[in-house]
């Protein structure tokens, strides 16, 4: 009887420790969600035009205008593009990469891009900066969209074409890169990083045939249209 009791107690202790361990890990990496907050899986499953509440981390800022800011954000499980979220300029300046925010808004989809609109936010304790995930192998596959808006990288891409919006420098740059004979659209989004003159010049000067690694946010516009943030010419 004592032996049985000892086994039961040991198993109970082991289970408790396992549970503690799990919650400790979640707390440690910041992936645990507060009450009433969706996991990324729940967000992904939510219907368009429904209210969503997420906890996420700012990765990059696209623009601020008329007390509205647009952000690329991500948690440990997935990414959320937040379009024109209500925020003052002072708040916008506080939302540096890594800042944890709780966002309440409406899930929307524009030309294939999943986004949160009409959002409000509050800053929370926590910090997370995503490292780019190599998704080169997912190019041309349906699973790529599961990574939508994440910070990603593509390796050994060949430059096919570089074109300026409006046919002259000063706005977005459209970049066509290919892999294994298939072409894909990339974009230097001017509002995201057009003010980085060195980067703008680097992308402007790319030539067909060059092989590059690129990093960026896996944006969608009528198909994948990554907003690039870094290019390495090989």
């Amino acid at each position, binding site marked *: 009887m004592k032996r049985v009791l000892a086994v039961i107690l040991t198993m109970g202790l082991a289970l408790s420790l396992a549970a503690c361990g799990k919650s400790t890990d979640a707390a440690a990496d910041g992936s645990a969600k507060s009450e009433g907050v969706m996991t990324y899986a729940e967000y992904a499953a939510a219907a368009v035009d429904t*209210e969503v509440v997420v906890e996420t981390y700012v990765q990059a800022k696209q*623009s*601020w205008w008329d007390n509205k800011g647009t952000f690329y954000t991500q948690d440990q499980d997935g990414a959320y593009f937040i379009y024109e979220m209500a925020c003052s300029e002072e708040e916008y300046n506080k939302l540096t990469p890594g800042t944890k925010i709780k966002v309440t808004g409406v899930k929307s989809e524009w*030309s294939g891009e999943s986004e949160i609109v009409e959002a409000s936010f509050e800053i929370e304790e926590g910090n997370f900066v995503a490292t780019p995930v190599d998704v080169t192998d997912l190019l041309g596959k349906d699973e790529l969209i599961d990574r939508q808006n994440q910070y990603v990288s593509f390796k050994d891409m060949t430059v096919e074409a570089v074109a300026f919006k409006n046919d*002259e420098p000063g706005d977005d740059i459209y970049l066509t890169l290919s892999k294994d004979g298939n072409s894909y659209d990339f974009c230097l989004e001017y509002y995201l990083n057009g003010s980085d003159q060195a980067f703008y010049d680097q992308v402007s000067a790319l030539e067909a045939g060059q092989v590059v690694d690129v990093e960026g946010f896996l944006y969608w516009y*009528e198909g994948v249209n990554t907003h690039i943030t870094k290019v390495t010419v090989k």
Partner: protein
Amino acid sequence: MKKTKIAAVSLLLAMVCLTGCHGKQAEETFVLPETFDESKAVEITFWAKNDTNKTQREIYYNAIEDFEALYPNVTVNMRLYNDYGKIYNDVITNISTNTTPNVCITYPDHIATYLTGRNTVLGLDELMADPQYGLGGSALKFDGPTAEEIVPRYLEECVIGEGHYALPYMRSSEACYVNKTYVEALGYTLPETLTWDFVWEVSEKAMEQNADGTYKVNGQQVLIPFIYKSTDNMLIQSLKQLGADYSDEEGNILLFHDTTADLLKTVAQHGKTGAFSTFKISGYPANFLNAGQCIFAIDSTAGATWMGSDAPLVDIAEDKIVPFETEVMTIPQYDPDNPRMISQGPSVCIFYKSDPQQVLASWLFTQFLLTNDVQIPYSETEGYVPVTLKARNAEEYQEYLSLGGSDKDLHYDVKIRATKLVMDHTEDTFVTPVFNGSASLRDASGQLIENVTKAVRRKKTVDDGYIRALYEEVQSQYHLDQRSGSGVMGDKKDLGPLPGESVALLVLLLGTWIILGSLAVYGRIRKRE
């Protein structure tokens, strides 16, 4: 970057408006020189807009080159924009520092705001009538149009208050680009003139689905039968067609009434089923149309090159394009026998500068933009129409129109049919009254449509209570509740007596000067004594 610019724009706009307050300060007036001094070098800046279209840019450059060849003492520096809003913001930013361009592509709504500043946009009546340098003047080195050769309706659109403050440059309207193949597959025949009832009925019919969730008409998972690009136009044109109020020449806001509410409820009804959506909510109508995911796509005729299975410009992958027959029709009407549609398109204005020769050079260049060599090629880039009868009747232009459909580029048939639609309905077009605040009213109109559409998509009920609250919200958002009719020339009205503090300060200053003057006089008298 953008944030800084916007903050600056807000501040400067406030400054511009304040400059107009107590606005009885003397305006400097432009005096037309007797002759254009071609021995003096003159530099002018031209802020232009194109539609992300390489050919349009080349036409501007060619026009500048040709003009400079005629007037070698003039240098034209161009800055290109692809967004009217950006031009507007930059002009506002530059008004207070007197660094506005000399010549600028713009909309009359925007000019009304520019005019709230002093010495901004030049009145053109005197220039237009000048026998030497006016429209068709004897001293012009090019074959410009006379006043009678500009389409009267378009010239009239450039009257703000009591005078002309711009010349028209290009004109367009809206068209409904229809997937005729799907309309007929649904068992309907397109009427001669589209009606709202027809569009709503077909759109609802198209929502029928198969058991697997695909739509019967296109076999796809996605279908938005009716998409409107510019929802401000949607409401404005609907009201016009119904003879309902929108605003008046005195600048009174008349938008928020029962007819508008009824229109919004209809939009809500079809937004709820998914039969209707907007560009802002879902995306470009052209992308859905070309993918076989839209049946009625309403957009500018100046966007015709993006419409249809064979469109020369596309934004979707080739394998997503679905073949169908495209019909180009007037926007839906409430009274098909009396069709009404908006007139839109860029105009050109000139900003006041202290050097009369520079202003005259600007005026000459502005007229040059109305010559056939500019009007005809530019209009051919999109579904624009030339603003001069001279260009419209030119053999070259008539030939262009007659070749519609002969190729899929310059003579793309959807584009040329859109152009013909605008020409055929010139007399059915209208513009809304222009005043300081008319641009905000236009934005508010679009917001009403967007908000009710979003509301029903989010399972909210759009009823009288909702509409009342929406009216309040939108009036507040666009500051329409803080203004009353103020006339068309901006708010340069007498703001009444000065505040007490200001009066006291002026009295104090006056008193000080009197005391100082008295002391000086007294001192002199004492000295003589």
